[in-house]
């Protein structure tokens, strides 16, 4: 039987990326995937005839340009198209349109608050400055601050230098930023609630925090630090849906000689004498490999596919207590026509981008309260995009599909487990809210796919349906991700690594975790590095 140099568990985008770089170093690699399709949460699926949903993740800005370029993902079919013009809807019928050009956007902000229109320039400069720093850490392995190894010291010095470049005042600001709430952070800039709510949305997406919870300011930064072609904060759509990203990476992997097996869920990681030696599949088949790389989240890796007796003390407990709370839902809707929203001018550049149903900071916080009590709000925060208005490949001509991301949706309900009926009620809540802003919306619905944390966990394998593979709070970031002492992609068992979003720099379709892990593995194997440098250092 074939003995692989490396087995990667999970064909999500990070697993595929990791495998591609190992294969490029001439390793014999195999990616095993439990589903009959690849991509994990970066996937496109024809759930309804002629409609191709990006079932989970739906927009992209964190995918590192340097990886895209190095793996030649365009040749493998990937095109990222920036989308423009998001409208946010306030509780009182107000709308806030994010016009693409600075002039019209400034005028729009002024119509809400002249004060805030001016303040927006300061916010954007500040966010850019913070983003530039954090971006430089994305494709680097976090240094262990307690280590005296030359490489850790060198990396600590790099961070110190970058921090030093911020200036004294900014150093304080940056530390505050990591611990503040999104709402408090925005209070320093703005007076208008809709403007604050609009920006605060990025502070709660995917996370079990409210706009007033400490730590949500960092989540906001995490969502604006990406870029499309150097335009920081911009978002793009993958032509053909998010699955096009995974497909392209898989193409690069196969070109480098790597293999992928679907319908091959892992039952257990095999450990012998404290070393990982392979995996057992759910069908009982054993596959041996010199190293095993888990692209599953930290909790699933150590509590589901590993045996506690194989783990050094403390790891199982750390994994069990790893913060990976389910807080989001996703409703994908096939539409017979483009929906029309009340109160918007007849402007196609604005009407077909994204929609943010944020309401107000108060509404968003009330939705969080519901989550805490184990239910969902009647008035949730919804972030929507209509990819078919941009991408001609995802719906029949003239028809559309709308991606709706809902914050919040609990993974465990107070009144007992999720049932198909409760799932549909949740979906109905979302449709009802959109109908309020778009009368007649319900009549356009051709098909609907409702995904609560229950479906996301069971289909994709993300514990509790947490989209980041673990909360992005300071206690679980940088050298603390996933656990203190294990931030360098090597796990407590020899020859075992992690490459998913549970590792630094966390969630998002960025490929960073995958490449960082590949670089560490190649160092251990004394192989030449195949991972490119990031291209953000001269920003």
């Amino acid at each position, binding site marked *: 039987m074939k003995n692989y140099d490396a087995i990667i568990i999970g064909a999500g985008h990070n697993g595929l990326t990791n495998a591609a770089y190992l294969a490029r170093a001439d390793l014999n690699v195999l990616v095993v995937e439990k589903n009959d399709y690849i991509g994990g949460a970066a996937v496109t699926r024809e759930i309804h005839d002629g409609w191709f949903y990006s079932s989970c993740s739906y927009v992209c800005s964190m995918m590192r340009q340097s990886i*895209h370029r190095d793996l030649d993902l*365009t040749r493998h079919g990937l095109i990222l198209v*920036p989308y423009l013009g998001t409208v946010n809807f306030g509780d009182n019928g107000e709308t806030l349109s994010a016009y693409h050009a600075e002039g019209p956007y400034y005028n729009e902000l002024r119509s809400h608050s002249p004060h805030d229109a001016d303040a927006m320039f300061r916010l954007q400069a500040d966010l850019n400055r913070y983003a530039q720093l954090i971006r430089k850490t994305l494709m680097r392995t976090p240094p262990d601050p307690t280590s005296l190894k030359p490489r850790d010291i060198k990396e600590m010095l790099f961070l110190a230098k970058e921090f030093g470049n911020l200036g004294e005042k900014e150093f304080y600001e940056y530390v505050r930023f990591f611990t503040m709430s999104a709402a408090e952070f925005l209070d320093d800039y703005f007076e208008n609630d809709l403007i604050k709510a609009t920006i605060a949305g990025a502070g709660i997406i995917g996370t079990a925090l409210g706009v007033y919870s400490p730590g949500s300011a960092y989540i906001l930064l995490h969502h604006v630090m990406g870029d499309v072609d150097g335009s920081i904060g911009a978002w793009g759509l993958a032509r053909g849906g998010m699955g096009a990203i995974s497909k392209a990476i898989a193409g690069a992997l196969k070109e480098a000689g790597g293999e992928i097996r679907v319908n091959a869920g892992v039952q257990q990681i095999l450990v012998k004498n404290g070393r990982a030696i392979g995996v057992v599949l759910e069908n009982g088949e054993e596959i041996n490999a010199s190293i095993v790389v888990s692209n599953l989240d930290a909790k699933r890796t150590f509590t589901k596919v590993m045996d506690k007796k194989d783990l050094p003390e403390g790891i199982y407990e750390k994994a069990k207590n790893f913060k990976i709370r389910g807080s989001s839902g996703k409703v994908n809707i096939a539409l017979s026509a483009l929906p029309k929203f009340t109160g918007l001018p007849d402007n196609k550049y604005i009407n077909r981008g994204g929609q943010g149903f944020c309401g107000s900071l108060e509404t968003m916080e009330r939705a969080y309260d519901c989550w805490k009590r184990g239910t969902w709000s009647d008035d949730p925060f919804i972030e929507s995009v209509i990819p078919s208005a941009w991408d*001609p*490949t995802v719906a029949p001509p*003239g028809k559309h599909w709308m991606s709706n991301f809902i914050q919040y949706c609990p993974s465990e309900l107070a009144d007992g487990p999720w049932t198909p009926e409760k799932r549909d009620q949740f979906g109905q809540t979302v449709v009802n809210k959109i109908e309020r802003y778009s009368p007649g919306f319900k009549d356009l619905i051709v098909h609907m796919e409702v995904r609560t944390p229950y479906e996301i966990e069971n289909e994709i394998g993300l514990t509790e349906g947490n989209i980041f593979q673990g909360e992005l709070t300071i206690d679980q970031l940088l050298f603390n991700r996933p656990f203190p002492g294990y931030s360098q992609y090597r796990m407590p068992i020899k020859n075992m690594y992690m490459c998913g979003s549970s590792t630094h720099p966390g969630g998002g379709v960025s490929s960073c975790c995958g490449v960082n892990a590949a670089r560490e593995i190649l160092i251990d194997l004394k192989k030449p590095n195949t991972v490119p440098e990031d291209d953000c250092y001269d920003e």
Partner: protein
Amino acid sequence: MTTDRKFADERLKLSPFHDRQAALNLRDSWSVWNGYKFAEYYYDAEYEYFCVRNTCGTYDICPMQKYLIQGDNAEAMLNRMVTRDITKLQENRVTYVCWCTNEGRMIDDGTIFKLGPKKFMLTCGSPSLAWLKKASFGFDAVEIEDITDTLAALSFQGPTTFSVLKAMGLKGIEDLKPFQIGYFDFAESGLMISRTGFTGDLGYELWIQNKDALELWDKLYSIGEDYGIQPYGESATNMARLEAGFIMPYMEFNEALKTVHYQHDQTPFELNLGWLVDFNKPLFNGRKALLLDKKNGPKYTLTKLDIEGNKPAEGSYIYGDKKCSLEIGYVTSAMWSPAVKANIAMAMIETEHLQGEIWAEIYYEKELRQYDKVARCSIKEKPFWAPSRARMTPPENY
């Protein structure tokens, strides 16, 4: 077109599509091409570029020069003028050509449409009537007519263009091959379509009499609505053509007839257009000089570069070493390619130095401060963007 506005005498000419285009030019961003008012961009250059790569867009080529060349000697006259052998060109086909001075310096490039056995259309970027007249001396029975102002034209480019034309009910459009010309029943005067373009992607050029121009526009835009149609201007065109590896006057080459300084113009070999020069033809303008250029090797060679990092090498000098002590050329066009995700450029590099290292000294600005870096370049033989969908017949239907 006339206008009763003040200073009408000094204003630019308006294309037959102007009314529709002006309504969509939200940024009032206008430029000028051959005396016509002409959009730099309408909404956002990058957005329009992405329409060409992702959906479809229209580019007003009314200001492009169009000449009808007819008569018994039309073919002979053109064959004498251009470097390519157009006796091989079949009816209802289009070919890309260039023409030179007797010294072998390039005057312009363009396309020749063979509309009938004795009927050709020549299109090019700059007015060329004077040269055409000169080139026709000695050829009897050649009529040259400038039809620029009467034949409206739209370049229609991008992956969904075929679907739009098909949905418009143009019968047989699915059979039209690259560089082929077809005629379709449309409006009163009919529609000529060539499967040509300047973007390297699937695309067509639509030719129609001025009076029916708006009817064509309205039809395209009503059907195209569901296929992401958008007008695009000069900026997006320039991005797309650079990815496709096409040259632009006053970027890659200086038209020979307008060049003051000896050798500030180029030969086709320098522009990497040697494949357009057919020495099997016994006589054509510049043949002797070009033979010599080919034999000696051109001083410069236009080269496609992939440059490390993401700072476009606009206006950069090219060096043969990282220390920048050996200057070997200059960048003619450069950009970050959003589709390919690469830092691309075309550069004129001294042919003798093509084999060695190539470095670009790149200047860039951040918040009023100037920075520079030296970036390694690698030569690309193929165009940066050449998707297979551009060549498929029938094309993909959306």
